[in-house]
């Protein structure tokens, strides 16, 4: 299928110039390049402008609840591990109300991809500060400057245990597409922060700000790979390699200002994927995951052998 074929007919109601459009295009391209069939993909959206993404893609789309996109997506993936499951949502959705799930989902190395649209504001509720807004920053919708420090999504993902961590930018279509593909291909929990200008509410960090620095006259954004950055912990890596990759990710995560890295920050290939581990415990899991444990036809008999199951309860 072509990228265009992953586009739905219904009218998109994001604002003109919204970074979300760029992300949408990149997702379509990624799906096309991965050669996935629409019914094999399920995109779960949080609540916010960003959360509307699933409506605009010609794949299974689930519009969940504010802050809960990760547990919803997790449930689906656990129940049917052959699907490609993607969670998308805003920075308020994921790091404000959803921070508890963000952290705890990282602990499971479940093979799903989480795209976080970072526009530093609560778009759909009219521009309040998101947890990503920096100390002292004040966008036009805020009454006063932020008195709180911000959450650094890459750092939080690293701390939480995600095994693939990247950052992209909404308007760099090709790079973003590659990152999304890479994230989906990663067999484990993949977290991709996407810097997303919100032209309506974020007057601090708009397209111009990202793509132009007074100092260099160039974009602030640079690709980690351009500097020879190697994010991956190999399958049989030793403790040293783990520490080294962790430390370099910490360091890169702090960079901000005139130079902002994008690309893959961290990838741990040595960690066993979660459903693999489940199938070691529940041998039938691959063949009969939760989605396939009960026959679909009407009025069947229970498949469980109750006699045998009740034996240990029989006096």
């Amino acid at each position, binding site marked *: 299928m072509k990228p265009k074929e992953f586009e739905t007919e*219904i009218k998109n109601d994001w604002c003109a110039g919204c970074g979300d459009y760029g992300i949408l295009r990149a997702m379509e391209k990624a799906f096309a390049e991965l050669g996935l069939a*629409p*019914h*094999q993909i*399920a995109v*779960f959206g949080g609540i916010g402008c960003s959360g*509307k993404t*699933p*409506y605009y893609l010609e794949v*299974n*789309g*689930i*519009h*969940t*609840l504010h802050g*809960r996109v990760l*547990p*919803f*997506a*997790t*449930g*689906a*993936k*656990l*129940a*049917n591990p*052959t*699907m490609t499951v993607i969670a998308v949502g805003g920075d308020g959705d994921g790091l404000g109300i959803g921070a*508890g*799930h963000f*952290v*705890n989902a990282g602990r499971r190395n479940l093979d799903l991809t989480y795209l976080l649209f970072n526009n530093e504001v609560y778009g759909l509720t009219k521009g309040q500060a998101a947890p990503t807004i920096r100390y002292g920053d004040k966008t036009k919708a805020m009454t006063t400057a932020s008195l709180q420090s911000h959450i650094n999504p890459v750092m939080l993902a690293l701390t939480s245990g995600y095994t693939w961590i990247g950052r992209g930018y909404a308007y760099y279509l090709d790079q973003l597409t590659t990152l999304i593909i890479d994230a989906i291909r990663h067999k484990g929990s993949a977290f991709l922060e996407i810097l997303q200008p919100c032209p309506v509410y974020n007057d601090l960090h708009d397209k111009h700000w990202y793509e132009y620095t007074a100092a260099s006259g160039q974009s602030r954004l640079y690709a980690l790979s351009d500097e020879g950055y190697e994010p991956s912990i190999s399958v049989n890596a030793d403790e040293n390699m783990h520490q080294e990759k962790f430390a370099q990710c910490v360091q890169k995560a702090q960079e901000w200002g005139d130079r902002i890295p994008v690309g893959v920050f961290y990838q741990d290939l040595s960690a066993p994927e979660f459903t693999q581990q*489940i199938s070691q*415990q*529940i*041998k*039938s*899991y691959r063949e*009969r*995951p*939760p*989605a396939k*444990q*009960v*026959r*679909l036809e*009407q*009025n*069947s*008999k*229970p*498949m*469980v052998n*109750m006699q*045998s*199951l*009740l034996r240990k*309860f*029989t*006096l």
Partner: protein
Amino acid sequence: MENYLWRIGGPQGSGIDRAALLFSRLCAKQGLYVLARREYHSNITGRHSYSDVRIGTQPVLSHSASPRMLVCLDAESVCRHVHNVLSTGYLIYDSHIADTHLSQLKLLDPLLLENLCKPLQKANLNCNIRELLNLAEQHGITPIAMDYETLFQRLRDEFAIPKTNAERSRNVIAVAISAALLGLTSEDVCHEVAEIFHNKPEAVALNSEAVQLAYDYVATLGINVLQPFANVEVARDDRLWVNGVQSVALGKLAAGLGIQTYYPISPATDESVFLESNYVVPMNDATHAGPVIIQTEDELAAITMACGAALTGARAATSTSGPGFSLMVEGLGWAGMTETPVVVSLYQRGGPATGLPTRTEQGDLQFVLHAGHGEFPRIVLASGDVEECFYDAFRAFNYAERYQLPVIHLLDKNLASTAQTLPPFVTDDLVIDRGEILHTADSSRHASRFLLSKNGISPRPLLEESRQIFWTSGVEHNETGHVSESPEVRRRMKEKREAKLVLAAKEIPLDEKIGVYGDRQASLMLISWGSNKGAILEAIDRMNQENRPIQAIMVKLLWPFPARELEMLVKSNKKLILLECNQTGQFSQLFRQELGCNINHRLLKYNGRPFVVEELVQSLTSIFDGTAEELMIHNNLFE
């Protein structure tokens, strides 16, 4: 034979649970019927806990207030239970606690302490255990002092073990003494010891020896051996020994549970932990499968993860108690809005907030009926006893999938910690109803997830499985599942969703809605719901025997409320008594809202303890005799 109540009390961590299990199985194996229940504090070790084991020659329906034999592993147990022992009963205590002054017992509630000390002080007696026991003896109770220390010393000598190890057999010794007094054989006791400790040979050896020592000890006491179970008619057919959480879990497994999410919480956790240990479930075709059990980070995740799983066609459930359910209500609304079948097993406990984590209450009924902002259909069913738990848990999934909505299965602490001898579950009649699933033959590219239909049911596509893609949304949506704010779409979708409840009310058979018991001609009608069933059935049975006929109705389906069915039963000339385990009369409110008719008496209990048959009979008698108040509140002064 009249039912026999044996009670054992002691500090948590001292093996009360295991003692009760041992004693229950011992009696059940004799062919007797047994019902056991447990009361305990929200604490890991040290606070008081007790277990009741009630034994009969007919199925035992409920527990009772007054033990015939009370075993106290510590002084506090004497204080809490001595007043309840039947005047012909026995009280077995540790001889070393006799001089314990009540003020030394720091875990006694001041109120209880006062209640205990008052009569002693009045009589100018010492406030100690000895005097309490003397008083009891004056009332006809036989105290039996038990010198555990000597027995422990023997065990230490024999097994060369430290004191603390020997002391661990205290609970088994207590059971053995009871068994010896009741005329059961030491072989039978040792047999059960071997079963219960089966993977720990040293424990079996130690405890078997302890049993022998206890029997020897009893022989030296010169007490007449009681023989309540001798020569009684007993059951010879297969029976199960299950408690409420196990019964629910087994029902779920029978239904083909695919995934259960949970966050630990008393008294629900045990169900999920039990399921966790059952990850290899035998299938009829000789293969195995097993549900995935996931401990989540909180209950917000538990309900939403279950919903996510349900979208794939998995039968998905979560299990919790009040505080957890409070966190699930937004997710519940999502399930309602998106017509996602999900089952929530709710074990009620004392609320609000952290409340009384390990005490029973039927305090969540109205909450459950209305939980979640906005309006959406749900089905609420409540089990009356351990046996019903199994069938209801099974059925819950059928309801959920047929009507595509969340189903709340109301349980409580009382059911969770009650174990019973039961006839084997009848599983041959069980049929799995998956509702209308969208089949893949259809070739158009999108499924219309929310196709408008007369009865409200839209064929349900499953993620991936149905091959057609679809959208679903917790925002109001049109047939394709895309957002719509059109007033007309809104109205139609609301009506479509609500229509499913009309369908459910029509289709669900009468016996899944209500149970009718007792004398149909009686002029008194007792209506209730949930775990009060056992006490009610036993009470009306006694009343009927005493020529005070009463009819009882247990409402099982609480929403959609079987108003029409009840209306047919509730004749205007009947006196209505509503009974429930809460303060505000939540079921009475619902009843009045739905039937509009007057309630003559309300029996309520809201002190964290379940209704007891004796007090129930008393209240019903006073109603029958016309001496009762409109509102009657049941208490437990001691305990």
